[in-house]
């Protein structure tokens, strides 16, 4: 690992150098009813629009990797025959300017399923591979429990990771692309003082976590509590609305639809992100629904995240970003659900 430091205004330079590509970063999108700012990942043309000290975003950066809706293929229909066109929908390299550790960890988890599996998906892989990622250190919010999920730091899956040291950035360089880009701005070797200040920031971050999830033996506990009443209690509140999956940086389930144009000369195959909480998620041809009840669907959401995925990959499919709990109108959130399954207060 190579470490560098550079003065804060050098970041503007770096932004300019990188902005020949499409740059996506955190910006303020609006204010809520209590006048608190709401942040979101948007295409950024102007460095001043970036809010690198953002606490968290309402939505993850998922749509730049896994759009909610994506055309998988289109067809030209001629009399008696047809032609298929496939497009992975990547037109230019993208720069992600300022992702938190949880969100980069989320991409690493998606990679396991969508790239390094038996059936890689080129639509995701092509976007992921054409991405330059700059991570940025953050301070935990009340809803963050990434520490519990081992996702508060990130080891790989990005190009460069920045930590704010007041008047300068401490940069962790992971890729040769990042190294070469940094040659275009003024940097210095990290000194012992920089190391010290970096450790100070890390200590401060560690002390700020207020929400924790106990994952000890969680797969076993979930197995034991498969029939527990708590699932029914949470299920009674669940709206089966899919919000949790839509704001989750690691949910990847989808459905596929084919539509024929009205002129009957063209057709498209479209993929739409779906959620295991939606009523027809487990409905099969013929109409049988394997999970007709809300509490069963909600339970399986938790089993996929905290049991199934752990058994397959030895890590959870939850990075502890807390977004699902923040957005769920029924206040269903991971820390409380897991605590209730463990019969903790």
């Amino acid at each position: 690992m190579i470490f560098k430091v550079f003065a804060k205004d050098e970041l503007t330079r770096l932004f300019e150098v990188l902005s020949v590509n499409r740059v996506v970063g955190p910006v303020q999108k609006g204010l809520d009813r209590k006048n608190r700012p709401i942040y979101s990942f948007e295409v950024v043309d102007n460095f001043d629009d970036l809010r690198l000290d953002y606490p968290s975003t309402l939505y993850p950066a998922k749509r730049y990797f896994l759009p909610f809706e994506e055309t998988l293929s289109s067809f030209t229909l001629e009399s008696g025959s047809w032609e298929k066109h496939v497009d992975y929908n990547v037109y230019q390299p993208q720069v992600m300017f300022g992702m938190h550790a949880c969100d980069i960890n989320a991409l690493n988890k998606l990679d396991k399923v969508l790239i390094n599996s038996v059936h890689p998906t080129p639509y995701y892989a092509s976007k992921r591979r054409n991405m330059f990622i700059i991570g940025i250190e953050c301070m935990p919010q009340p809803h963050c429990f990434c520490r519990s999920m081992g996702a508060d730091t990130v080891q790989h899956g990005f190009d460069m990771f920045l930590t704010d040291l007041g008047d300068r950035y401490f940069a962790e360089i992971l890729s040769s692309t990042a190294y070469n880009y940094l040659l275009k701005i003024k940097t210095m070797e990290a000194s012992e003082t920089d190391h010290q200040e970096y450790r100070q920031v890390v200590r401060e971050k560690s002390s700020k976590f207020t929400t924790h999830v106990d994952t000890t033996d969680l797969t076993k506990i979930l197995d034991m509590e498969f029939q527990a009443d708590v699932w029914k209690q949470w299920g009674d509140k669940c709206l089966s609305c899919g919000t949790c999956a839509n704001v989750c940086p690691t949910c990847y389930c989808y459905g596929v639809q084919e539509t024929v144009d009205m002129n009957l000369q063209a057709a498209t195959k479209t993929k739409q992100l779906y959620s295991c909480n939606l009523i027809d998620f487990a409905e099969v041809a013929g109409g049988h629904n394997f999970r007709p009840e809300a509490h069963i669907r909600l339970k399986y959401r938790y089993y996929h995240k905290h049991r199934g995925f752990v058994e397959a990959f030895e890590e959870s499919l939850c990075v502890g970003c807390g977004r699902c709990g923040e957005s769920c109108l029924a206040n269903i959130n991971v820390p409380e659900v897991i605590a209730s399954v463990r019969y903790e207060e």
Partner: protein
Amino acid sequence: MPANLTYLGVELARPRVAFFELSSCEGCQLQLLNNEATLLDFLSLVEVVRFREGMTEAGDDYAVAFVEGSVTRADQELQLAEIRKKAKVMVAFGSCACFGGVNQLKNRFSDQEWVKREVYGDFHVDTQLARPISDVVKVDLMIYGCPVKKEEVERIVTDLLLGKAINHPKYPVCMECKANENICLFDLGEPCLGPVTRAGCDAWCPSNRMGCWGCRGPADAANIPQMARIMAEHGFSTETLLDRLECFGGFAAHVEEIRKKG
């Protein structure tokens, strides 16, 4: 205009379709005329024999009947029975036809004579409670919305023609609202029925910063008790909830239950 269509070399007959209006604002029919870019494609797909808003002739030979509006008069019941006899596919077109629509708001008043006097004065009008057309005849297909969404109607008609199954989203509006990455209206201090209303409109209202009023009726797993809790937690009264649930008639059964519980 071609008499027949071909799809992948297979000949398909253009279905003869007719549009009818009962008690309605005709806004749903107007939706179809709205987008001129696709109107010609639509017209080449079907043979319209009756469409008051778009043509003067009125044919009597049709396979698909699109009926807009709710039933509010005795003669409309007879008209519906006649249409049903001729149509192979009876479509309830828009929320008035599906649930009674905005018209059924008058059903809230116990004194219907008073409603008549308020609205029509001394002018005699033979009007009854507003009902969905399924109260009178068997309906084969519902197209929800106040108004219907043109893109959805076009897709449904194309699928009908190709013999594909017609599926409505079973999930609620929130799903589409989140896909549009909106800020939730509850976070902005406004009420919204998105959590319990059937999707399909691409979260039309929330995407324009207006709360959903439930025009598409309940989603397949509408959790009304939880919706009521959410409204209360955000400081909205039961009346505000009922006003919204009652607006289009889709939640009539749920409203009755809430009122019974007091």
